[in-house]
């Protein structure tokens, strides 16, 4: 097997319970986003565009749709003879079944996979953030700083610091303290959940951590603080683009809405940094004579016979006559029958909104979720 300078690992095993019904039969990274994508398309496309051709995806929770989506990585050009994308599920060994007990344990269980490529660096990503980032620039920074661990950070408004993991740094961005969800933050640089490690060093800590009886098997709680305490050089890498955690219904809704503005912070049309996904084979969208579409995104296979305003409509959605969709996210294959009205809602894949029904908060305050058993199943 040929050596790779850097291997990426995407943590995609989380249940994402704050997304409620959407993740009942679906891993969080497989949740639809942005009119045609799934969340994991963003880190995967970033890897591909950054020139990283070896990616392991650690799965555990409801991986069927995710596995089918990723396949051998063709849509992201990651179907490589050497390297490429590999799905790493938990498995049974001679010693019995081994579920991943936490983020650090998941990587510990796959040390062998990483070692096959003998990398100098490992990039650890999570599968639930929306952003476009060149990881190779971060690696260059990591090397320049002679860092042991580099954490991607983003400036957040001071008033939001209490919601994030804040990194306290010296002037040259060397990290001296982690401050998890601080009440009185000393800094406003939040961790993005993007890490570059020197692989040898990380491996050493992973093995040590397994032997620690008090470990939570968690990167943030165990590995990183331990490494900092031991005096390893850790730096923050500032990212100044768009970055959003879409782990809650509110943030998922907001992330979708942000794509609709004229000066959308995430330029999805940029041909130099495309976001790839599995493309369905569906006919073009039909906008009928009765339709009235404004400030919305619509995808292939849709049939729009009603009103759509400030909404994101995924592929293969039918919107009936006199139906109204306001400030909503409509996931694939949904049927909105005639005269139905939807306000500020997220409608899960394969749902049917019956003729004349009214869904959501007319005042446009609360977000309503309509989900169903079949959320996970679409092509």
């Amino acid at each position: 097997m040929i050596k790779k300078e850097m291997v990426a690992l995407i943590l995609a095993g989380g249940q994402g319970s704050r997304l409620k019904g959407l993740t009942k039969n679906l891993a969080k990274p497989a949740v639809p986003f942005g009119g045609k994508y799934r969340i994991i398309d963003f880190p995967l496309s970033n890897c591909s565009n950054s020139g990283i051709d070896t990616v392991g995806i650690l799965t555990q929770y409801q991986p069927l749709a995710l596995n089918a989506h990723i396949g051998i990585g063709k849509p992201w050009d990651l179907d490589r003879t050497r390297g490429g994308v590999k799905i790493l599920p938990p498995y049974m060994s001679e010693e019995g079944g081994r579920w991943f007990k936490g983020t650090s344990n998941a990587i510990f269980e796959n040390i062998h996979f990483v070692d096959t490529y003998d990398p100098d660096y490992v990039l650890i990503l999570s599968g639930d953030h929306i952003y476009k980032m060149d990881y190779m620039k971060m690696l260059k920074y990591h090397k320049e700083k002679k860092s042991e661990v580099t954490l991607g950070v983003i400036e957040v408004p001071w008033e939001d610091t209490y919601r994030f993991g804040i990194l306290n740094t010296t002037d040259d961005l060397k990290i001296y303290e982690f401050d998890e969800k601080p009440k009185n933050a000393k800094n406003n640089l939040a961790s993005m959940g993007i890490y570059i490690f020197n692989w040898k060093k990380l491996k050493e800590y992973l093995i040590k951590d397994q032997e620690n009886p008090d470990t939570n098997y968690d990167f943030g709680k165990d590995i990183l603080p331990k490494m900092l305490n031991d005096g390893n050089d850790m730096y923050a890498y500032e990212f100044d683009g768009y970055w959003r955690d879409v782990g809650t219904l509110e943030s998922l809704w907001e992330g979708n809405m942000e794509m609709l503005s004229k000066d959308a912070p995430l330029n999805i049309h940029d041909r130099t940094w495309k976001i790839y996904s599995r493309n369905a084979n569906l006919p073009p969208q039909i906008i009928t004579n009765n339709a009235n579409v404004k400030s919305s995104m619509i995808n292939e296979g849709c049939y729009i016979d009603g009103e759509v305003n400030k909404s994101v409509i995924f592929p293969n959605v039918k919107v009936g006559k006199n139906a109204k969709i306001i400030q909503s996210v409509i996931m694939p294959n949904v049927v909105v029958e005639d005269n139905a009205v939807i306000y500020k809602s997220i409608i899960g894949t394969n749902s049917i909104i019956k003729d004349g029904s009214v869904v959501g908060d007319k005042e446009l305050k609360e977000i309503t979720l309509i989900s169903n058993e079949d959320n996970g199943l679409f092509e």
Partner: protein
Amino acid sequence: MKNCLGIINLSEEEMQIQELTKVRPIAGLPFAGRYRVIDFMLSNMVNGGIHNIGIFTQNKFRSLIDHIGSGKAWDLDRKISGVKVFNPAFNYNKIVQTHGDIEHFYQSLDYIKYASEDYVFLSRSYMICNMDLKKIFKDHLESNNDISIVYKNVKNEEKFYGLDTLNIGMNKLLISIGKNTGKKEKIDLSMEMYIMRKDILVKIIEESVESGHSNYLKQALFQELVNYKVGTCRYEGYLACINSNKNFYDANMDMLDMDIYRQLFNNERPVFTKVKDEPSTIYRENSDVKNSLVANGCDIEGEVKNSIIFRDVHIDEGTKVTNSIIMQRTKIEKNCSLNNVILDKYVVITKENILAGDKKIPYIVGKNLTI
């Protein structure tokens, strides 16, 4: 129809559709927002269970080869069989050039001969339809005829003038093939699709090359029909013949009729094409789109009525597009007005331009132009 080889013959007349076919064969013409003309025949074959397809091109084959690629989009990237494009072999040493396509078929006769299938379904690509080939094949087998020709009974209209018509006799047997002069009110239009045992096709090609009496495969077939028992299979459903600018324009516009649209696009027999990485189309605050087919990746700020918009088209504020076909990656700047227009790919219409054609003679702007 696993036992049937598919052949698509692209040797087609392009006289009446020259502007758009400068850079591509008719088979490669963009259609209905995201397809190319050949996608329909390819999908018919794949949905009919044909897994071994040969496409015989003439010139201008490069864009078509790019489109077909490995055949993945049609699930035709198979170990055995799959799709194969035959370009006419180009022999530097042989300056004498025979006209017609029969020579081309003769050069590739081994492919036809040694394919494992016993039957062959031969067609052109310029007839757009969504046809249940399994049924057609079943009809042919049950008829016990040597050859079957597929036809559609149509009300005669100008768009069918000059095409082949079938004279059908007792028991659906063919009496003769004629040209549609436009005199009859209803005609049985030949769809130029033939089913037969493979050895019959091979024999027809060999005999024709030997005798030299035909330059075109179609000629050769007509000449030989007398020697075989030839039946007919009737097709019901939408049919468009892409052989003139007007027919091309009208067929695209037909897609705005939901009844026709649903005849071409259904879940049972989907139309496959090469997929592209395009984001969703965005409709801006002041956009106004009605009765139109829109593909992915567009950014629409202006007004669009009764039009077909292909992928990645940008229509700026204050611009009105009506009754038009706007192909891929075209940009129409502010305050333009377009009516009965066809824009080929990569066209840029600079601001405040007014372009208007007639429904019968749409105004066409060729590929890559900026006006």
